[in-house]
């Protein structure tokens, strides 16, 4: 069973979102389950800083040797930072998906969007359904 932190919000397409303590920045990455499915991550394409994105937009791509999948943004807003460490060390996504392996940060324009995301329990069910 993969690690699904209780304090995060999720998309069924395996992205996680964390509201930071400033109350407006949302950090986004992919889940432990997702990195496990992909296998060794070899490349991550991230959005441009200052780009405006809407919830559900394709905001990046994560590639392993044998697969590639789009990364969707769970929230709308302006991209304020991307994890540049992933450029040289994409393996961080495998080793530490919820911390050092984060993808990008968004200054959210509508915090209500977080409410419509899955909580840890609902996301765990999504993962379980996929395994069958």
């Amino acid at each position, binding site marked *: 069973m993969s690690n699904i932190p209780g304090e995060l919000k999720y998309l069924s397409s395996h992205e996680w979102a964390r509201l930071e303590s400033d109350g407006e920045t949302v950090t986004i990455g992919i889940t432990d389950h997702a990195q496990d499915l992909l296998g060794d991550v*070899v490349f991550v394409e991230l959005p441009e800083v200052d780009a405006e994105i809407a919830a559900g937009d394709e905001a990046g791509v994560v*590639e392993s040797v044998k697969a590639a999948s789009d990364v969707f943004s769970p929230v709308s807003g302006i991209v304020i930072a991307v994890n540049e460490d992933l450029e040289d060390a994409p*393996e961080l996504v495998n080793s530490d998906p919820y911390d050092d392996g984060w993808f990008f940060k968004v200054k959210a324009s509508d915090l209500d969007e977080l409410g419509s995301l899955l909580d840890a329990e609902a996301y765990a069910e999504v993962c379980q359904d996929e395994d069958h």
Partner: protein
Amino acid sequence: MLIFEKGQPGRFATSQAPKASGKCDDIPAELMRKTPAAMPEVSELQTVRHFTNLSRKNFSIDTQFYPLGSCTMKYNPRGAHKAASLPGFLARHPLAPESHSQGYLACVYELQEILKDVTGMAGVSLCPMAGAQGEFAGVAMIRAYHEARQDHARSEIIVPEAAHGTNPATAVMCGYKVVEIPVRTDGDVDLEALQQAAGPQTAGIMMTNPSTCGVFERQIEDISRIVHEAGGLLYYDGANLNAILGKVRPGDMGFDVLHMNLHKTFATPHGGGGPGSGPVAVGERLLPYLPTPIVGRSDAENGSRYHWLDQDDLPDSIGRLSAFMGNAGIILRAYVYAILLGREGLHRVGEFSTLNANYMATLMQQAGFQLAYPERRATHEFIVTLNKQAKELGVTAMDFAKRLLDFGYHAPTTYFPLLVPECFLIEPTETESIDELEGFVEAMIAIQKEAESSAELVKGAPYSQPVKRLDDVKAARELDVAYQRS
């Protein structure tokens, strides 16, 4: 050792270059090259030896049985290669005048006619340089057809989920959205899903038949009716044409456009990944859109003359796909193959490729291997699933594939189609003898025994090749795609 690591500064095959001659001082200095390129510096013998030794690190049809599903790795007749390499053909410039091209144009014209007949279509263009470009041409013609009718609402191409990855990629290159429909457990398309997907937004459907599941799509006439009634057209991906060559014609099944892979069905060499050739054939309504140039013939009292038909002659054509006209040398080889086999020979291709596949499938099943579609007749290829071996023994289709190399057999196509887990797609082709087919099955039985008794042995394979399994992750993370002289 790389060629760059051999040799000495200043060395090259001196008899291959002109003597140092003349000045080029009329070219402005700022346009001249300033830093020399670090190319190899070796003798002619070093070159010949290096590349000859490299060639010996390859599997090939000429050296091994190569049962790659959907790739049709049949014998490539040496005669076809020899004929296409006649000096008159090699020296002909692509823009040579028609007066100096009648021999070549006659071959091209006759191949167009032969391909029309074997596919049951009204017109052929030999321009596309590979299957994927043929697909592009085909879908671009579908688009041109709808647009000429002012039918601008058609924005979707339907693709069965078992389809080859080029199909959706092609649809997108032609500006279409892809709608995937499921395939039933018996390998045929889910007709209800198709019925729901088809509508006024449907530009067409892309299919292979036999499908990539290695079975003949039995509802092809229903599919044709549903898509045509919705106003869409049917595209036939000729990847598996070898299965039905001379037995069933795509035109008779209701397809409006198709591409063939001459490097599969017409036995031209794969060349380590190309060149291929992907001619397109169309029914009446797509004739005006064929890619150019095409070869036409005019008959007069003093004999036939062949001439190019270009954009001026076909103003609605989707245009050119290459600077000249496709992979001309491959077209010649395919022509030679067709005239060597002739009417009777082409007829036998589908028959004997099917006989070989069914024989192998039966032997595999008798040996205890699980067929993906056991209740179906195999076509020219069939699928074995090694899911049980993967789950119970931890030995995957990849492991079997690598171990086969040690037994001297190239691995079949693995993990395709994606919807069958741990699968082998096996296509023996008609040119293999019963001895090879039985040898392959025996190797599979031997590997199965190894998997049961010493799984680790199989998982570490291959052992007989120049390298063991390679670190693909390192290759992608620490990209090294060009030698840097240090």
